[in-house]
């Protein structure tokens, strides 16, 4: 007797992580845009903090070097 093989998901289909239901194309795009907005926000904020930390460190080093040269 032939057993029915479970249908494989199309590569474009996604499962909603909360409801476990199949997402339609519109929901997938909505999800991708929301993720993009959140990721970009964090990238900008953390990128700025990293740049600021590097600037602070360079400034500290320059001040220490100037002090050493003075003595």
């Amino acid at each position, binding site marked *: 007797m032939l057993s029915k093989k479970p249908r494989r998901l199309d590569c474009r289909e996604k499962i909603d992580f*909360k409801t476990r239901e199949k997402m339609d194309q*519109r*929901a997938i*795009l*909505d*999800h991708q*845009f*929301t993720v*993009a*907005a*959140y990721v*970009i*926000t964090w990238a*900008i*904020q953390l990128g*700025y*903090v990293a740049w*600021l930390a590097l*600037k*602070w460190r360079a*400034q*500290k080093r*320059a*001040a220490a070097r*100037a002090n050493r040269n*003075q003595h």
Partner: protein
Amino acid sequence: MKKLAIGLYVAVTVALLGWAFYQAIYAAPDEQTMHEVQRIFYYHVPSAMVAFLFFAISLAGCIGFLAFRRNRPDWAQVSDAWALAGAEVGVVFCTVVLITGPLWGRRAWGIWWTWDARLTTTLVLWLIYVSYLLLRRFAAGPQVQTLAAVLGIFGALDVPIVYMSNRWWRTQHPAPVFGGGPDSGIKDPAMLAAFGWNVLAWLAWGLLILALRYHVERQHQKYAAQEALDALEET
């Protein structure tokens, strides 16, 4: 003691950001017409609010610099550091607004950008403050701080125009969520909570990086003053 207080503030801010993220993504329900993409609102609007606050701090710093530059040079330098820190961190938050807005607009309206009053005035605000930062970065001479302060005051004049733009003119941008008439406001308590937590979290984060930027600028001013003094002594 000071280090402990700073560490505690950083820990509370990180916890707040995590909680606000949970509220925005998991706790708040899907909006009826826009569905999931409406969740961009929880990052977009608080970022705009924080940007406006920091541009106001920059305005106060610019006015302070112009007021104290002749008779109280120390106060003028402190004011100038606040002006620069407010403008720079404000630009960071305004950049977030200008990127998350079109991402929402592409799904909600079908277009990335339109030249309506709210969007255009926000872009102009961003351009004015970017030019303020470029002036601070690349111009040289004794008048740079004064010129930047004047530009900063003109930039801040755009903030109330941005805020009122979708009240004064018919715009494609959604109507004001708060203070926009009897129909405005968030009706769902879970959505309102998510919004409130995100405002609080981004404000705490913004104040943290504002304080860091101010500290870096003050150090830079002291270092530059010392260098100038050493150069004078050598001659």
